[in-house]
């Protein structure tokens, strides 16, 4: 009786043995081809580098001193904030308000009750201002860095001194009555939507120095924002009659045409 399985194994061995020289030859040819192509590539890149280096050496020898920095050919790197959208899509439930990019400073509540605004002046000597109330919690300048965050002390950082301390600025203004400081604070409040405080500080600044255009303009703009458009117009007319300020005239025109609301 024939042992078929044994015969089949023998046949397989025979076949493998018969094909083996062909495989070896093919493998050797392929290896040779790959080796040759790799060798050519390295030669080419070496040549390229050599010529580049030569060029660089030539250019370096031609330029005796480093060229001065020119602002015109400077590359400006800008951050990309597209990831915020990805982030919102990933984590945050879609809310119409939260679609905006992250705010620099928390926006204060603009719709808080506004204190009554004093009647505008008949002359440029401004009436006494009302003392500003405590800044609303949302408006207090957030210290750029806080001292401690978590219980994990190894993670806390002490190098944390950057700040915009508006309260400190207010204290300094109270002590020094510096008109520029008052104007800065008024501008800060105006930019942050607290027109009541902006009004107060513009008024204080005008009391200290009534010849600062920007302060009068901020004062009038705050009045418009507080809904006292007529008073703003009167104030501007009075100021224009005394100073002939183009900026004030421009603002008055804008208010009258309804371009500034």
């Amino acid at each position: 009786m024939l042992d078929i399985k044994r015969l089949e194994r023998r046949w397989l061995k025979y076949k493998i043995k018969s094909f083996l020289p062909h495989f070896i030859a093919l493998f050797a040819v392929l290896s040779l081809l790959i080796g040759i192509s790799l060798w050519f590539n390295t030669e080419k890149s070496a040549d390229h580098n050599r010529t580049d280096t030569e060029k660089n050496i030539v250019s370096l020898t031609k330029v005796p001193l480093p060229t001065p920095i020119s602002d015109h050919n400077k590359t400006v790197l800008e951050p990309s904030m597209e990831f915020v959208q990805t982030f919102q899509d990933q984590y945050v439930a879609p809310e119409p308000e939260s679609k905006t990019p992250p705010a620099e400073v928390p926006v204060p509540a603009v719709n808080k009750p506004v204190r009554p605004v004093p009647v505008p002046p008949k002359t440029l000597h401004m009436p006494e201002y009302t003392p500003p109330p405590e800044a609303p919690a949302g408006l207090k300048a957030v210290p750029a860095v806080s001292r401690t965050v978590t219980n994990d002390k190894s993670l806390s950082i002490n190098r944390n001194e950057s700040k915009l301390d508006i309260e400190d600025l207010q204290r300094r203004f109270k002590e020094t009555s510096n008109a520029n400081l008052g104007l800065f604070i008024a501008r800060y409040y105006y930019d942050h939507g607290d027109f009541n405080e902006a009004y107060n500080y513009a008024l204080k600044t005008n009391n200290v120095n009534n010849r600062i255009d920007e302060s009068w303009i901020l004062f009038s703009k705050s009045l418009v924002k507080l809904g006292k458009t007529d008073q703003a117009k009167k104030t501007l007319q009075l100021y224009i009659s005394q100073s002939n300020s183009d900026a004030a005239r421009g603002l008055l025109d804008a208010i009258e045409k309804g371009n500034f609301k």
Partner: protein
Amino acid sequence: MRSPLVLLLISCTLWADTGQNLFDMYQKGMYAQACDYGYRFFARNEHNEPFVSLVGFSCLKADHIDRLSPVMSALAQTPDARANSAYFALIVMQKKLLMQGLYDHKPIGNLQFPTSGHLLSRVFDLYVKNPKQNDPIKEYQDPANPRQSYKLYTTHSGGRKSIAIDEYYDKILTLHHVY
């Protein structure tokens, strides 16, 4: 069979919460807290580039420039991430060069660098143009806004050598940064 699924679910929830918390802190302007928080969960989210970018911007806004090093290394996969990585790398490099210039009087006037809108880059550009080597406190006026000026000087913070930049508007100190 069920326990790995539960673990996976819990870890996914934690991961989502971490991102949400970080985003909330950033939106509230709590940059230092966001930086600390993101840094704590950094290893877990190292491959999540939006997360890493947000950690980077939080640390940047909190003036923790040194913490940007791992952040910029982890950003590489998308054009968005690469742009932010280059931006962070530039700021880190400019800070390091400013420190060398201020402490060791290393001349860096011949360097040609990209720039950015960040305060450090603006001050770096002004310093490169005019290092004012003899002045311990270097004062520069912003060419784009004459009312804006800066003071650059060395300082120590937490026992470490640092640099400080003060921002002035009409000669009024408005912001104090320690890097």
